[in-house]
């Protein structure tokens, strides 16, 4: 096939559209972060930075306590991801394996709950955290992020757990594992692609969250990145170039996390080994 619309070309075209659509804004921010303010406002616009500069990055660290925000975000996202994965692994195991009554009802319930708009939760969460005296603490965000990530993590793990042959667990239990032992030693490692994918989604959700973070952790000391980046904006000024630099810094950890685990996700250690 050499036609313009051959299926191979169409596939490439579709892939390019998807990648460009996803990558362009990020790329634009990266380019902007190396431009001076003057270059940013000049017409006609430039695409490639004319005089690439690191000044914006220096300014980003100077104008706001960026390392504090980074640390807060990292701590909150990491803890909530780990707890989410732990709890949802147990829930998913029960849903995938035990002969439960109302299993489908529970699954539907989980999906329904995950569709609640966040705004509706904001006021009650604020009241609860104030009542618990947790405003401006890591807990104020770790707890809601953990809970908010449970539905998606659980659903994802259920589908992965279901694909693991029960007899592998049975063999492990005869070999000396408890039921939970076989969950941690067999099911979770074998569902690794699912676990890492769920983990990445949970981490990114927590890393990106703005609304709750802004209302529950207003103190600088506990502010997370998305809210922190908002602080570069002055009453009169909107320093695009510096915000871009801060955004790039905010993207780096996510990229590292994804690259770190993509390998595990792709390696597909579950393939083979079961039926002849």
């Amino acid at each position, binding site marked *: 096939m050499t036609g313009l619309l051959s299926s191979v070309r169409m596939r490439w075209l579709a892939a390019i559209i998807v990648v460009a659509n996803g990558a362009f804004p990020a790329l634009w921010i990266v380019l902007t972060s190396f431009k001076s303010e003057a270059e940013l406002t000049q017409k006609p616009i430039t695409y490639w930075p004319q005089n690439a500069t690191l000044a914006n990055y220096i300014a980003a660290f100077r104008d706001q306590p960026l390392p504090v925000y980074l640390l807060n975000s990292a701590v909150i996202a990491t803890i909530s991801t780990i707890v989410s994965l732990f709890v949802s692994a147990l829930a998913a195991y029960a849903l995938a394996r035990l002969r439960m009554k109302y299993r489908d009802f529970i699954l539907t319930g989980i999906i329904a709950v995950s569709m609640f708009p966040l705004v509706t939760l904001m006021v009650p969460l604020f009241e609860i955290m104030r009542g618990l005296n947790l405003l401006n603490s890591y807990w104020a965000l770790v707890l809601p992020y953990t809970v908010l990530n449970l539905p998606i993590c659980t659903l994802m793990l259920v589908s992965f757990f279901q694909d693991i042959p029960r007899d592998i667990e049975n*063999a492990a239990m005869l*070999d*000396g594992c408890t039921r939970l032992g076989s969950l941690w030693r067999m099911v979770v490692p074998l569902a690794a692609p699912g676990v890492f994918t769920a983990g990445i989604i949970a981490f990114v959700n927590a890393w990106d969250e703005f609304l709750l973070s802004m209302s529950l952790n207003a103190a600088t000391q506990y502010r997370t990145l998305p809210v922190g980046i908002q602080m570069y904006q002055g009453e009169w000024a909107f320093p695009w170039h510096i915000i871009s630099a801060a955004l790039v810094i905010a993207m780096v950890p996510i990229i590292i996390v994804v690259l770190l685990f993509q390998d595990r996700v792709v390696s597909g250690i579950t393939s083979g080994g079961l*039926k002849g």
Partner: protein
Amino acid sequence: MAEVALRSVTKRYGAVEVIHGIDLDIRHGEFAVFVGPSGCGKSTLLRMIAGLEEITAGEIRIDGRIVNHLPPRDREIAMVFQDYALYPHKSVFDNLAFSLKLRKLPKEDIEERVRAAAGILKIEHLLDRKPRALSGGQRQRVAMGRAIVRQPKLFLFDEPLSNLDALLRSEMRAEIKKLHQRIGKTTIYVTHDQVEAMTLAERIVVLSGGNIMQVGTPDDIYNRPASKFVAGFTGSPPMNFLPARIAASPVALEILLGDGSARLAASLARAGAYAVFANRNVEFGIRPEDLAMRRVGANDVSLPAQVVVVEPLGAETLATLQCGAGEMICRLPPNEAPAAGENISIWVNMDKFHLFDSASGSVLRAN
């Protein structure tokens, strides 16, 4: 070694009862085979013994100790699964070593026991591989290695050979038998293949629909089946059945086949025994090898028949015959095989027939 005792063991899934109160004793060091058609509850029964399924009612004892609520890991049982259930993320060595590591054995002991088991099963060269890099037969060996390395009291096998091709299956069958002779541990083996059951078992447990149909040695099961079901389940091809009636006079016993057109006179010895069943509607059962083209024994009786199909198998030839009462398959030496369409006389060995009650299917016991 271990002794297993089942007392009124029952399993219900919701409202459906799949095992109906089974009583069974398996002796020290015995090789017992559960055999029966698909869905009869063999695996369920085995899993209950392993502790992988709960028992709805009844009692299971291993070495006299009630294990109803003992978790699988405390039962000292090793099991080989139909799909092998190897740990895909562990190497062959770690598959074998897993149970020993959980029991915190010293590293050298683990190494030694794994190497010994691998040696017995000839998989030493595979120890570094992952299961996905193994052939079906090799996976089977690893699964068996994982079972023997534990040195359990009791071995359970759930159709371990059903994923292998015919050649490998008979090779592994011999291997399993050798292993049992060497280790001598109590073994329960599930299969739906009656050939496996006959060749491996010291005792066969025939199951159907969640009930035990018969327990006995392969010889018992084959030559003294307790019911039409058992008789029809063993042998390949299985026993022939023809509807019949028993006609008895004080001096002779005759079996009227089908419409009554054919009469088979029973040998004197058996006539007396069956006299009490006179006028009963029965199923007349005869194995393919107890039919012949010529008279062999004094008690042979001939029957007119037409040859329908002839199937040469090399060492023997199977011929399907149509006689007045129905179809029969006979097993013949190849040089005696008739041609399809031929009208022949087939000789029935009247020392070997079985009679089953038409209604209940249970054997009519000659006493």
